[in-house]
């Protein structure tokens, strides 16, 4: 390789290098600024009065207070236009019977939208019995968000897991990944659907429909980590647990008086 050729190669390499550096430095402020912009954009989309960065929502459920009336299920279906079939629920209520021999029977007829049949007869004595309302656990470490191939399901700054129905491709991977059975394919939109904590209501300063409808205040809604929140107060007064803690999903739906048989 003679000198001129060598010099030429170096010049070209230098040129490419400086071009790359200048391109990166041009783009850097845009990339760094994008985060701030996104925050502003998100706040703007949701509404002037609601700043998602100021909240972190969670729910507590007092199992001892639930009477299995199914009003929450009804309220949810109405509020969120959930399809009226027995296989689509954003929230549902389970009834547990634990018998003297240790066997367990669980049911949730049509998600308990019309409550439960009281005339159930059993061969043996019931040791304990209770109702467990279920919904999306709005996990802090959500497996559904991890697996969504296009990022259509995401965690909002205020800790709610949402789905963008205009973006979801309907692959169903998130349904497989959810340990709680909280997700379903909406037969009308062919996209995935689940509880949003009634995000449209949160943005207006209202509580979720199920919380409002509960006649016994078994569902407590509020900020996870603000001192004045009813949720934090509830967590101070009760021993609480979460569903399937071993999976490390870090749910933000907390249960007081949770039985070992519930999963």
């Amino acid at each position, binding site marked *: 390789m003679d000198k001129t050729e060598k010099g030429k190669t170096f010049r070209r390499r230098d040129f490419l290098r400086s071009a790359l550096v200048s391109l990166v430095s041009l783009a850097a402020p845009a990339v760094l600024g994008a985060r701030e912009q996104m925050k502003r954009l998100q706040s703007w989309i949701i509404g002037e009065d609601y700043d998602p960065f100021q909240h972190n929502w969670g729910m507590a459920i007092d199992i001892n207070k639930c009477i299995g009336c199914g009003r929450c299920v009804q309220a949810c279906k109405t509020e969120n236009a959930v399809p009226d079939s*027995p*296989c689509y*629920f954003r929230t549902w209520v389970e009834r547990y019977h634990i018998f003297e021999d240790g066997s367990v029977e669980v049911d949730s007829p049509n998600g308990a939208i019309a409550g439960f049949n009281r005339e159930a007869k059993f061969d043996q004595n019931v040791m304990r019995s209770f109702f467990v309302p279920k919904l999306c656990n709005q996990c802090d470490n959500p497996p559904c968000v991890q*697996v*969504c191939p296009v990022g259509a399901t995401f965690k909002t700054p205020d800790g709610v897991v949402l789905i963008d129905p205009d973006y979801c491709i309907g*692959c169903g991977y998130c349904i*497989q990944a959810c340990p709680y*059975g909280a997700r379903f394919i909406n037969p009308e939109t062919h996209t995935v659907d689940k509880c949003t904590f009634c995000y449209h209501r949160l943005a207006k300063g209202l509580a979720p429909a199920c919380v409002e409808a509960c006649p016994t205040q078994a569902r407590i809604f509020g900020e996870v980590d603000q001192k004045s929140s009813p949720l934090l107060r509830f967590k101070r007064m009760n021993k609480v647990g979460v569903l399937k803690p071993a999976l490390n999903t870090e749910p933000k739906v907390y249960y007081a008086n949770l039985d070992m048989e519930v999963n």
Partner: protein
Amino acid sequence: METPDARLTQLLSEIGGYIYPNEIEIHWGLLIVIYPYITGLVAGAFILASLVKVFNVKQLQPVYRMALLTALAFLLVATMPLLAHLGHPERSYEIFFTPNTTSAMAMFGFVYAWYLMAVLLLEIWFDYRKDLVVWASQEKGPRKWIHRLLSLFSRDISPRAVAFDAKMEKAITILGIPSAFLLHGYVGFIFGSIKANPWWSSVLMPIVFLFSAIVSGIALVLIIYMIVTPLRKKELDQDCLYTLANFLFYAMIVDFSIEILDFIHRIYESEESIHILAQLVSGRLFFSLVVMQLLMGMVLPLFMIAGVKLFNAPFELRKLIYFLAAILVQVGIFATRWNVVVGGQLFSKSFRGLTVFKMSFLGMEGLLMGIFLLMLPLLILFVLFKLLPPWEDARSG
């Protein structure tokens, strides 16, 4: 309240125990069974082909090109079951444009594109290039132009150029083996990484997928070779057939061992999910898992292949036994995919009940569509055989 339709009533009546209400319908059906089955065949056929180029298994030379074209034919179809299954197939391009980096599934497009473009098409092109040039020079009409187009209008068949082809081919094959492992191991990871599902969540899943892929790929090439050769009125190469059967046998032994290891491990650890899984295996999956996958698809063909070798059976009998064994293996591997995909959704994540899978006949995810998707690669393969004859005697010397 709307009264549930007849289908739903029937579904509800067949559910055993308690399942979450959203779990009544199974979301991944026949098409998602077909997808790993097809990618498995692709990876397996490619790995078989690479035995010739990388590991110098000369006996397999007669099926080398056949294996490559088989891999290509099935790979071209591999995306179709996925697309047909999506709720919004028209948005599928989002997987390419805005992939979620934490999603195992988001990598699909890239793994697939890499395998098709950088491995399979390139390898086939380099392998056929010289023949394409020679064929085109001797042919007339549309065939000449098709071959010229396929050779990308290259004309150089000097020894130097041909040597370069061979060098590139070897390099691509070496790159292709980890790529084939990636292609199918990755499909296993899609299932194996779901911690919510104890039937899937296993670190062995990608490895089980991989070895069952190799098993199914070898068996498929064996079947195709045994059907196509008599149709061409040629003799089967005895050495080649024996070597195929040997490799099939070894791959099956490894596959079987890993599956049994997984099984023993589960029983021994006896975690929370063991009761519902035991119920699943002894009930709704008994036929497809124990009878079809294990006995018919694994144990019986293993004994058949070992038997003819042990008793030194004559060639004619061996041919018959190998053919039957390979067919059984295909059925068994299809059952394996079924048991993973459908089996993993038959039990509730509450671990308290089992649901049922009702396959429709018509419709995007029905049986008819499934049969079509399994036949389509064979049709593509037929066309490929016509365009790019893979036979040794078709080589341009």
